[in-house]
């Protein structure tokens, strides 16, 4: 009987509960990390000295009772040290030092294995990216359609491979606790690094970026549509940077002209003789007419007069020589760069039509744009961003402004909606899947806004400390702000939201962006979580909204309160009232008059909690940490291995001829027909 060679995983007989010890070791490691980062912080800000000074001031003003001063003295570091000590004692009660060492060394082995595998996968990914970049460049330079098709197929294959590696990294990350923690932490740190740039590449922006790059390579034109504050422009800048390094940027507005976008004629002054003046006037007038065919005869006449005066005035001893200067779009085309046209919905459609020829031109082809000859270099591309949704784009912009149909056609395939970050609407606890749910194929509830919030709150090492319900509160905030963003952006909601009176929530004037979300969390963090998060929601959302639109502030306040996650303290309802007819919020002035008192009511008294890396990682990834499995490799039986090799070899040979055998009759029948046809034809 041949036994299949297998690596058998089984639990080693142990006199203690290894899993329990292991989880304590993990907590200890987490606490140690917190301690290290606290020590670092202390070093940096001369924590001790500040505390001493604070104590002196407190004594002088004697606001606090002696017990309270005592509490301040007990600093975080001390709590942490106690925690570590207690854990150490508990571990030692259960296992010997030798066993702890074994456990740790196995744990590190798993960690290193993950890091090595991840590194090699990332290296492969990097290589794929480089080759794909090369292929994209080649594609843009290629004029032959057939060859372009070949390149296009190759590019798609590389993208596919890239995604496969990404999935593979995720897969190896969920294999054991070490890889799980390391993966979550590394992702968190990556996001942390990206945060200052204003665009964190969570799954959604990343996929939209990929999509845009693909379209830009193939058809040169992409338009991001979405509401204010979703980060379209930042994403556009990032794409341009990654694709061509240097890029051109045009902020769109109603009064933009062809000169701002394409080119302008600068006037230079040189010496001339007065006898040439009539000729120069004639030339300049002619040029002006050609350049402005849409002006009425009256307008032309008045401009002619102006030109005459200018030339005569300047021409006592000088001549005006005009020279062409390229503006952003033509400059980008000429140099093979990307041009970003921000808020393009404000630009007159007739001007945008000037893009058509540029987008259509073959690489290095010379074309004419508004009378200017230009060679379009490979690498040229246009990214439009517009504060407008797709339906608005179709209904409002296209109809009213009569945009050039040729441009619309090109835009069709390049339209990318860029909405709010995906964020599931469910309780925090429900949003974290168990490993078995994950294995059953259940989708992890989306949490990209929440991930950015955690990124902001975590320190460089990925540590988070704050009120015990911090993760839950941040989740609730993400959920609620995402909902408000969707209402503001006119996005489709899974379940329609109404106020208790049955009215729809209508938000149009006060934009709720990711910036609003981040500023709430940032202020909360900067105050060291001293007051309830409700205060920061009030101060960074309700209050500023009440200045722009009191009725929207009223609706937001009512909605948050009614949904039960914010403003549950009766004090809020007592002070802030919403007018039932026009929904305008009232009572803001009262709070503003005595902000300090209101803040004091919102003060959090509970001691701070240090979130173990496990808690942070689970919240961040939306999956419970995989359980530790103790493995032991059983020796392979040599003889069996040899036989298995032989069997596999025979099986492979059989598989190779199997389909031939199965289709034998049909294949031979085809052969016979061919033989008949071909030989007959020969005769």
């Amino acid at each position, binding site marked *: 009987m041949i036994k299949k060679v297998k690596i058998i995983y089984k639990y080693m007989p142990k006199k203690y509960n290894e899993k329990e010890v292991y989880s304590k070791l993990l907590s200890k490691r987490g606490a140690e990390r917190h301690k290290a980062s606290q020590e670092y912080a202390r070093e940096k800000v001369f924590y001790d000295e500040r505390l001493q000074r604070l104590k002196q001031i407190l004594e002088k003003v004697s606001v606090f009772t002696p017990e309270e001063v005592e509490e301040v003295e007990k600093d975080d570091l001390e709590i942490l040290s106690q925690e570590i000590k207690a854990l150490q004692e508990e571990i030692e009660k259960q296992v010997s030092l030798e066993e702890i060492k074994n456990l740790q060394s196995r744990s590190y082995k798993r960690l290193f294995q993950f890091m090595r595998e991840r590194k090699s996968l990332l290296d492969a990914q990097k290589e794929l990216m480089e080759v794909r970049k090369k292929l994209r460049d080649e594609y843009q330079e290629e004029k032959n*359609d057939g060859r372009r098709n070949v390149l296009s197929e190759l590019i798609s294959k590389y993208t596919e491979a890239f995604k496969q590696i990404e999935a593979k990294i995720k897969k190896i990350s969920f294999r054991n606790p070490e890889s799980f923690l390391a993966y979550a932490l590394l992702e968190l740190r990556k996001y942390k690094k990206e945060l200052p740039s204003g665009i964190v590449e969570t799954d959604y922006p990343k996929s939209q970026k990929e999509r845009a790059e693909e379209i830009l390579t193939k058809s040169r034109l992409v338009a991001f549509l979405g509401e204010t504050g979703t980060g379209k422009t930042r994403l556009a800048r990032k794409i341009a940077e990654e694709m061509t390094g240097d890029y051109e940027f045009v902020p769109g507005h109603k009064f933009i002209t062809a000169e701002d976008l394409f080119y302008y004629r600068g006037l230079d002054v040189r010496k001339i003789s007065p006898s040439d003046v009539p000729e120069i006037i004639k030339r300049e007038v002619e040029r002006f007419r050609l350049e402005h065919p849409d002006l009425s005869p009256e307008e032309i006449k008045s401009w002619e007069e102006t030109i005459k005066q200018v030339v005569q005035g300047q021409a006592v001893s000088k001549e005006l020589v005009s020279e062409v200067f390229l503006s952003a779009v033509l400059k980008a085309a000429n140099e093979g760069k990307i041009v970003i046209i921000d808020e393009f919905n404000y630009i007159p459609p007739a001007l945008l039509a000037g893009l058509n020829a540029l987008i259509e031109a073959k690489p290095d082809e010379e074309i004419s744009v508004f009378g200017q000859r230009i060679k379009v270099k490979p690498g040229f591309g246009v990214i439009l961003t517009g504060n407008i949704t797709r339906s608005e784009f179709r209904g409002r912009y296209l109809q009213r402004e009569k945009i050039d149909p040729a441009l619309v056609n090109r835009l069709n395939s390049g339209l990318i909606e860029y909405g709010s970050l995906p964020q599931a609407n469910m309780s925090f606890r429900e949003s974290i899947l168990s490993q078995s749910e994950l294995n059953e194929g259940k989708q992890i509830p989306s949490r990209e806004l929440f991930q950015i919030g955690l990124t902001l709150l975590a320190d460089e090492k990925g540590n988070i400390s704050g009120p015990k319900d911090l993760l839950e509160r941040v989740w609730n905030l993400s959920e609620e702000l995402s909902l408000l963003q969707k209402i503001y952006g006119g996005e489709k909601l899974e379940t329609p939201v109404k106020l208790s009176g049955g009215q729809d929530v209508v938000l149009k004037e006060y934009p709720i962006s990711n910036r609003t979300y981040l500023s709430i969390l940032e202020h909360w963090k900067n105050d060291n979580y001293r007051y309830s998060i409700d205060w920061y929601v009030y101060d960074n959302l309700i209050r500023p909204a009440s200045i722009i639109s009191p009725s929207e502030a009223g609706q937001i306040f009512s909605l948050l309160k009614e949904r039960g996650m914010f403003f549950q303290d009766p004090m809020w309802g007592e002070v802030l009232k919403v007018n039932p007819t026009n929904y305008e919020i009232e009572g803001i002035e009262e709070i503003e008059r005595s902000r300090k008192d209101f803040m004091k009511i919102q003060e959090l008294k509970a001691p701070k909690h240090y979130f173990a890396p496990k808690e942070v990682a689970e919240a961040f990834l939306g999956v419970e940490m995989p359980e530790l499995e103790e493995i032991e490799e059983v020796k392979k039986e040599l003889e069996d291995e040899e036989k298995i090799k032989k069997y596999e070899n025979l099986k492979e*040979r059989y598989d190779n001829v199997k389909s031939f055998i199965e289709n034998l009759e049909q294949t031979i029948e085809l052969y016979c027909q061919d033989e008949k046809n071909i030989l007959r034809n020969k005769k």
Partner: protein
Amino acid sequence: MPHCQTFKQKIKELKGKAQNIEALLSEYVKTGDKKTEEKIDSLLKEIEKFKQEFKTKATQLIEKFIQRRENKNEKVEIIFDERDCRFIINGNLDFSSRIHLNDFPNLIKEIAGTLRTESAHTINLPNLEKIGKNFYTLFTHTINLPNLKEVGGNLEIPIAQTINLPNLEKIEGDFIALLTQTINLPNLEKIGGYFSVSNAQTINLPNLKEIGRDISFNEDNSDLNALIEVAREWREKGILRGKIKIFNEEGNLVQEF
């Protein structure tokens, strides 16, 4: 020298032997017996030998057919696909002066290059599934390509009475069907390039999802307005990505939108 009969005789014998292999293999898993192993090995050798013989003879046969092409100066490669025992022709085939193309080998499933015929009255390629590049045919009366699924380049069929390709799903390049009365492509999903039709009375493209570039009609089309209407609808739905162009008999552009 025909081999058909010899092959046919061999079939029955081999089929029985192949069934034996499966039983022997499962026995070998249990016992690991040396004799069983040798028996399997000898049976496999016999089948492998026959497969090789078939490959050689079939290749020779296809070679005979290929030699009748007009573009003899171009290199053409015959590739045997082990998985389904069919052949792929890597290169272009030009049969411009043939009146009938009805001896095209059934064993060929793919032409990786271009296929060109001119003035062939009948084109019969019953088992061809893919043409890697262009397919060009002129003045054809009957086109029978029931299994063609994909054309990697342009499909140009000017002056044919009926174009009926029931299984065609993709044309990566242009589709040009001038002076063709009936166009029936019930499974076509993609035309990667231009779509150009003139004098068509019936166009049936129920599954079309993409026309990559412009669509052009001839002014003389008997039901031009209806065609334009359809094209407009395609554009509304995002199927048509380019313009709608109308040409006159001289081939000059008269209208574009």
